């Protein structure tokens, strides 16, 4: 008899947490131990922060990489397509308050893509941005940080991380990050398979400059990982649309 055929005991009186909230909580704990601060920004964002400040100029083919929701009768505003605008917002705020780098921030939050939805695509989903800026932050640190995050998230499993070259206008060099979990106690779907996890790279000097940080003195890494995707992999969820279904047959398992 498989587990799903077992009758479940009545739920206790305690309510249940949404899996994404649980992941954000856990990510904040893991990154908190590495010195990262939790930051946030608006969902309805200006094109400046969402694109221009991130080195994605107007009318550039790179803007096609994301399908954007524009706001009616408010030219220059969009629903943010990624959590990266908060990189610039955070650094700008720190510089204005007289706090030079080093910075370490994570930005978990909702992002939007104007796409038709299916089992693996949602117009609304969650990303977690990471940013570390200092005098000596390297691509090797990016690898080390992502490895530690995934290792702790997958409960000490043997997680391997690899980089592939890629392009995102706000990083240079830019990489795609794959993950592989090896070992015995790993769900079949994840075991020994390379899985694309996130885009990342070294913060483009123009982005630092746009935020008021001196790129000749400071450098850093940034990454953006899909939380829905992590949830799907981690718990074997078969349909991303469950996240916004508000269906307790789903939620109350967590």
């Amino acid at each position, binding site marked *: 008899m498989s587990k799903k055929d077992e009758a479940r005991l009545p739920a206790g009186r305690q309510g249940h947490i949404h899996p994404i909230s*649980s992941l954000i909580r856990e990510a904040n704990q893991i990154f908190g131990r590495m010195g990262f601060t939790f930051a946030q920004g608006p969902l309805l964002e200006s094109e400046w922060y969402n694109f221009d400040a991130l080195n994605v100029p107007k009318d550039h083919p790179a803007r096609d990489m994301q399908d954007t929701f524009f706001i009616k009768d408010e030219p220059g505003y969009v629903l943010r397509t990624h959590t990266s605008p908060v990189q610039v917002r955070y650094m700008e705020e720190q510089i204005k308050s007289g706090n030079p780098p080093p910075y370490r921030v994570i930005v978990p939050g909702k992002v939007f893509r104007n796409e038709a939805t299916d089992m693996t695509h949602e117009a609304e989903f969650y990303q977690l941005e990471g940013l570390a800026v200092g005098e000596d932050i390297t691509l090797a640190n990016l690898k080390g940080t992502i490895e530690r995050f995934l290792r702790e998230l997958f409960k000490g499993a043997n997680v391997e991380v690899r980089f592939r070259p890629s392009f995102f206008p706000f990083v240079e060099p830019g990489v795609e990050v794959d993950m592989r979990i090896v070992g015995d106690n790993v769900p079949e779907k994840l075991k020994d398979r390379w899985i694309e996890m996130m885009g990342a790279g070294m913060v483009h000097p123009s982005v630092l400059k746009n935020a008021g940080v001196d790129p000749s003195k400071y450098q850093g890494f940034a990454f953006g990982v899909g939380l829905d995707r992590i949830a799907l992999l981690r718990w074997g969820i078969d349909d991303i649309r469950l996240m916004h279904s508000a269906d307790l047959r789903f939620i109350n398992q967590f």
Partner: protein
Amino acid sequence: MKISREWLEKYFDSPLPEAQKIADALTFHAFEIESVEGDILDVKVTPNRGHDCLSHRGLAKEISAILDIPIKSDPIRQSVSLEPKTDQAKITIADGKLCPRFTGAVIKGVKVAPSPEWLKKSLEAVGQKSINNIVDATNFVMLDIGQPLHAFDIGKLKQEKGIALHIRLAKSGEKLMGLDDKEYELKPSMLVIDDANTGTVASIAGIKGGKPTGIDETTIDVFLEAANWDGVTIRKASQTLKLRTDASDRFQQVISSELAAYGTTIAAKLITELAGGEAVGYVDEYPSPQSPWTVEVTAGKVNKVLGTSLSTDDIANAFTRLALPFEEIKGVFTVSVPFERLDLTIPEDLIEEVGRIVGYDKITSVELSPFPKKPEINVDFNAAEKMRKELMAKGYSEVYTSVFAEKGERAVANKVGGEKPYLRTTLVDGLKEALERNSRNKDLLGLKEVKIFEIGTVWKGGKEKILVGTADSKGASEKELSASASDSYDQYPTSTLERYEPFSKYPFIVRDIAMWVPAGTHPDEVIKTIFDSAGKTCRFIELFDKFEKDRKISFAFHIVFQSYEKTLTDEEANAAMEKVYAAVKKEGWEVR
């Protein structure tokens, strides 16, 4: 871009490895591969490399660098000459910023015919239709070196002292029948090539040629065009016309003006080889010449960014493999960037070149050193976490609902499908709807009452706010999440679920059973008996009533039946209940 292994091989002296090996090499050192089918690779060229890699030549160079095998000869490193000039074609350019260069050749006396087999095969292998030897030659050169070309039938252009082409923006109301037999209405933001002797549009610059001046079997003299166009103008025109072509894809990513001369000479040579005739002369209007440039990077900076300890030799080797000419003096590399590599402008660009050619697998992970400052506490997140704890303790489960609504103050302008374009002003509507849906599953969920909450964003009164909303049998309400300062976050528990189990989408049936059992009987014992006898559609058993009388206990249970395969019938539930009654009786318990 689709590339063929056979086509690539003409760049090398020795055979290339099999297609999958080439795919792996590109994947880990250059570009993602969409697919490998036989000897054809579909390469996802990133927007920063549209300048040079939307071509077999560009990708052959990449493979040469990655696999460290030299290429035989690079067609765009040869000397190129657009001589002799001809006075049989006169080119004028209204705005040199929009058309930095216009080159061309007058080719006389061709014979239009089907292409030879090798050319047909080459084009068809990468998904291009063969049309005739002239058009195929232009497409072949584009796919080979990345320069889009266009061929006009000189006989269909008006000739005075030869032909005259004028590069200008379109006028309102101008139309053109394209080579694809579709009529395009042009806007003043679009660039056109105009037959200056008649003042009519002959082609939509950089996007599509015109049918009336196109090549057909009657063509004898050809004007071959290889120009350079402003990327933004081409991009906007292509978007407005909803017309993406291989040419517009390349121009919108911006290619070097220097490439045009190679396009013209290589294509003119190929055309005369395939179709006979003679290139009698060339034109070259170059109002905005591209200047050479250099980029400098130090070995120290390369290692500081990558976190590596590469030697100057390692770095020099990467540049050599990429055929990037450089000088190195005491660890300072000055790279003279080849004209087509418009992506290389800052030191970081060179660092990426070194990193990917050396291989990112050579970068050893290093954890960050301890952070010298204490992380700040986000007051909103802290407040949200406290709110979650409080509400969950009261039995509320957390839901997320969509921010899109049927009404609101602000709306998105371009939603796919167009439904619910507004941004919500309240959480209450979504919560009420979710409450209603979940209430139908109350028994299945084993809940006496469904209670849900959401912490989410709304747009109200011109502001973006975070609200916390709840819904239960008493109704739904919401309030603003009030910030909560703290020195540190409380360590709240995270979900301990290991694997999610998909739930059945079919309706469920609830049956009740009540019975007397001897005092001291634990309900779990009864639940086990019921479960073991009720069959595999028994989803859930819940004790809902219990009282004691005369040393006996009365238990009452809800039993929930549901199948993963179909809608259960009453008969099937009854049959399962019969088995439960029998099992209960066998235990000596008395069904009431």
